[in-house]
């Protein structure tokens, strides 16, 4: 991308214009610039002069940026309501993925361990084959969910060139929720009744060991989620101001 448009893109993104609208704006500006340049060349200017004249006719960077930034309707929700985008929405999304994990576990319990009192381990010894794959995949999904959600909001923050404050709050909440989530499963007392699965969040166990385990788990999630964002920031810092 040409330098003036690169600067304009960074400016618009930092001002909170959604990446989709920035992309479209810059595409149309680039097309317009090509038309202007062709017109100037037809008028007999050299290529370099035509380029300069076309840039002047297109408008100064301040004007181009201001015209788009003033259209409040193109502002991203990350700027309008960062608390919702980086705290509320990821927590709701994570709660949703945990709900899916519970349903997945319940089906596995019903299909592969119909007689067991709990889906955590088979009463007849280790599982093999598809049952093993099924439960391992569920475990991977359960433990990977907070990391994936964290990466998601990190990507949003990076695309929008946002400062790290709201992202950090969001990642800490995700790490806390991921570290303190507990699944409980029990068979109901009614003979032939269905198993019961529930979850609770944001509570650490009473014992010191449980607290330190929870904190360690939170730290692992936080590190994994924040790492790609930090790498991106460092790369940006090397290639120019963020």
């Amino acid at each position: 991308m040409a330098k003036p448009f690169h600067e304009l893109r960074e400016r618009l993104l930092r001002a909170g214009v959604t990446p989709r609208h920035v992309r479209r704006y810059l595409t149309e500006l680039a097309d317009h610039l090509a038309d202007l340049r062709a017109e100037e060349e037809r008028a007999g200017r050299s290529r370099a002069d035509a380029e300069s004249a076309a840039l002047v006719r297109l408008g100064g960077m301040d004007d181009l940026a201001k015209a788009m930034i003033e259209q409040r309707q193109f502002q991203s929700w990350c700027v309008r309501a960062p608390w919702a985008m980086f705290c509320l929405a990821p927590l709701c999304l994570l709660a949703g993925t945990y709900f899916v994990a519970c349903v997945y576990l319940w089906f596995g319990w019903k299909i592969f361990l119909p007689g067991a009192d709990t889906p955590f381990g088979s009463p007849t010894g280790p599982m093999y084959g598809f049952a093993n794959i099924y439960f391992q995949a569920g475990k991977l999904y359960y433990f990977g969910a907070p990391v994936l959600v964290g990466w998601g909001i990190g990507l949003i923050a990076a695309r929008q060139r946002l400062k790290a404050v709201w992202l950090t709050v969001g990642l800490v909440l995700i790490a806390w929720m991921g570290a303190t989530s507990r699944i409980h499963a029990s068979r109901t007392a009614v003979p032939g009744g269905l198993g019961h699965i529930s979850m609770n969040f944001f509570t650490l166990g009473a014992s010191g060991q449980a607290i330190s385990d929870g904190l360690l788990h939170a730290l692992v999630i936080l590190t994994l989620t924040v790492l790609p964002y930090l790498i991106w920031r460092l790369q940006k810092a090397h290639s120019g101001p963020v």
Partner: protein
Amino acid sequence: MAARETNPNFMNGVPELLILRLLQQEEMYGYEIVQAIRSRTDAVIAVGEGVVYPVLHGLERDGALRSRRKKVNGRSRIYYSVTVKGSHRLDDLSEAWTNLVVAIQKLLTGGQHGEAIP
């Protein structure tokens, strides 16, 4: 005290008015729109050419314009055209602008209490 309607910026809504009027006749892409404004107003109204796009995008988002991508001479262009909602908006803007012009003209040519400016 009742709020008084003011008209802080006489050029407010003019780019929208011009764009909607031009696009009502035929669909155009950004470069064509700017050239048409310049030629049909004898270059009296000249805008920074790039700033036409935020206005177009805003009108499209409001439902006054629709856009479609079209390949012309091997290049992909985004063509804009007016919707029914856009036509209504054009009528409203035209009426408001005509009233404003009549009022200013009346003032400049004397009106009830003034005298015509030579």
